[in-house]
């Protein structure tokens, strides 16, 4: 179907360790978006990937889009307590416009100082 699967569901790391979350689809994606939701907060847009094999960096965050455009990853280098939250990937619904998104269940990151 159109679902996107995220793994792991939870990740507990020591501050300074790296963190990676993966997003997988059984079908080819036109693009993939990543959002971060802090505890008690709302999703905040991080990035959109469109091209096969695309890699984008935002400071300590590295986003990748697979060559087959069926998977994506978010890697955080040297986590900080400010990275705590749930990270969601989201795909555009088939035939849908921007804003009609299907979200994964998210990866909840906790960081121990």
């Amino acid at each position, binding site marked *: 179907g159109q679902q996107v699967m995220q793994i792991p569901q939870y990740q507990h790391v020591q501050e300074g360790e790296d963190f990676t979350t993966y997003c997988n689809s059984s079908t080819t994606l036109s*693009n993939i*978006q990543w*959002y971060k939701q802090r505890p008690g*907060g*709302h*999703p*905040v*847009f991080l990035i*959109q990937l469109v091209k096969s094999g695309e890699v984008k960096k935002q400071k300590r965050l590295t986003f990748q889009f697979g060559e087959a455009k069926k998977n994506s990853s978010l890697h955080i280098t040297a986590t900080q307590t400010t990275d705590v939250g749930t990270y*969601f990937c*989201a795909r555009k*619904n088939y035939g*849908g*416009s*921007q*804003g*009609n*998104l*299907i*979200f*994964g*269940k*998210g990866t909840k990151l906790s960081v121990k100082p």
Partner: protein
Amino acid sequence: DAGVTQSPTHLIKTRGQQVTLRCSPKSGHDTVSWYQQALGQGPQFIFQYYEEEERQRGNFPDRFSGHQFPNYSSELNVNALLLGDSALYLCASSWLAGASYEQYFGPGTRLTVT
């Protein structure tokens, strides 16, 4: 520049009642999408409003309806509330006419149905 605003912040309703949630999009945005987020889950698309019409709809029953006003603000109405409607309701705005893909989410309305 105000971001997306939603009201009320929290709401407690009884099963069978009706509720109206409100959303004001970010300045310059013309499109509002509504999402339902159950605890521990990702947001689920309800519908999208553009030019005062419902343009897209997710897999939600007709009990969920909405409206968009000329100033681009929007309402989400839910009739005959069920316990399962308890969730965080998020609206997201974007600039569809400008082909902008970034969705700006509001703080959400936490609805509890008892």
